[in-house]
């Protein structure tokens, strides 16, 4: 996990990932607090709880306390979800 910053403000809409099988598409944008998370997944029945937790934990670790994160998952593994969410948040926060 990237640990460069204690607090991150989302300043613009940004995305990461792809809509391919085994990957996840993530959108992050500014919004209210607490962070609003929407999860859509092909494996929601089997892993819905784990996916939501991965997004929440990544947002918290990046210091994001406000904003909106939407993900469309097609069976990405946990580490892929965390990496894609972090990338989207950093892009949204003006990092990349």
């Amino acid at each position, binding site marked *: 996990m990237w640990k460069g910053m204690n607090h991150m403000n989302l300043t613009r809409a940004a995305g990461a990932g792809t809509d391919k*099988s*085994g990957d996840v598409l993530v959108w992050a944008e500014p919004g209210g607090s607490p962070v609003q998370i929407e999860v859509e997944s*092909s*494996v929601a*029945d*089997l*892993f*819905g*709880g*784990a996916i939501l937790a991965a997004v929440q934990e990544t947002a918290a670790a990046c210091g994001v306390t406000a904003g909106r994160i939407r993900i469309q998952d*097609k*069976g*990405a*593994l*946990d580490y892929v979800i965390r990496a894609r969410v972090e990338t989207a948040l950093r892009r949204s926060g003006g990092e990349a």
Partner: protein
Amino acid sequence: MNKLVSSLEEAVRLSGLKDGMTISFHHHLRNGDHVLNLVLDAIAQMGIKDLTINASSIFDVHMPLLDHIKNGVVTGLETAYIGAKIGRELSRGLLPRPIVFRTHGGRPSDIISGRSRIDVAFLAAPTADDHGNFTGKAGKSACGSLGYAFADAEHAGKTVVITDNLVPYPLAGASIRETCVDYVVQVDSIGDPAGIVSGTTQITRSPVRLQIADTAVACIEASGLLEDGFAFQTGAGGISLAVAKGLKDKMLARGVVGSYCMGGITSYIVDMLQAGCFRALVDCQCFDLTAVESIRTDPRHWEVSAAQYASPTAKSCLVDGLDVVVLGATEMDFDFNVNVHTDSKGNIMGGSGGHSDAAAGAKMTMIVAPLLRNRIPLIMPRVTCITTPGNTVDVLVTQYGVAVNPARADLRSRFEAAGLPVKDIRALYQTAIALTGEPTYPQRREGKVLAQVFYRDGSLIDTLYCVE
């Protein structure tokens, strides 16, 4: 006798089809089939209702069937396989009566014994004459073997042959003969050639899947079964085709000449015949144009009926002579049970076809599959549906290792001696879970019965419930 009638409606009328009867179809035109939809449209126009369809398989091209279910024309379905798209719709419980799943061997067994009655068979015929002799080997909609149509033609109350290539009598070399045909109908098109050769008939390019295929070939070599007279079946999945390709090189290198190869026949299997790996191909179903051309021109490439392929009540059948069969799996459990009927949500997306028949017959039944697909582990404590019972499944080959059924200590020691990565199936499960996390499997469903799954001997092996 000229049996040509003017239209499908006329053939239906003459056949005496009435409410509540059973009609049948073969699936050799696969996802290019026009005949099932044409016949149901004609029957619906005539106001006949409450029919049961007994089709050797249902494909997504048959989506219009859903409308005929909603309007009450069709109330029952018996088959060996249902495509994923139409399967998902049917899984909501559109039919008033449970779907009946049989295997490719169980279906002709039940038809021939009279346990499964067909009132009228509507048989797509790529080339036919006006007496009803027909073949799948020629015509613009050629599909090759008509193996699944034999039992229907010979045992239905009435048989209607539907063709888009009517030739002068007599059609030389017909597969199914005039002796069992009542009516012949000419239509513009029985199928779309592009869909007839649909499906997973391309070899995989995925490195993971190629590695699984390599390991499977090494298992076959280590099994001691790869000797002259070797009899082999493989499916048409991407990994199975890669196994066939690898096996061909191995057989040629060792100078092994097998007896027969069967299964859905593809260009890869035809290559093996032409290279001298086998003395014969026995073909119940062609999957591509190379296979169609081969069965038409090469006398070593035989057409066989589904009963000869796999019927458990035939006096003998080909699956019983198999040394090795290579099959796929959607799910597999700790007891080696395999599911190819449903996805993890319980939606129908397949069916046995000949899966459980070949598994029961072969000396070594191998499942080749990636350990996880889009986060869903292959292995689970208990499969969503038992298609093929674990006591007929010997080996699972994944990219993380090979699991051997505990009942086959002989194979296990051969594999270990060959240095193959043998693992306990529970250890492979743990490997998968470490990557995916622990899945929360849905509870075994209850409520309205969606389908009854019958094993090849006619016993009920599992029950599926409707998915909301």
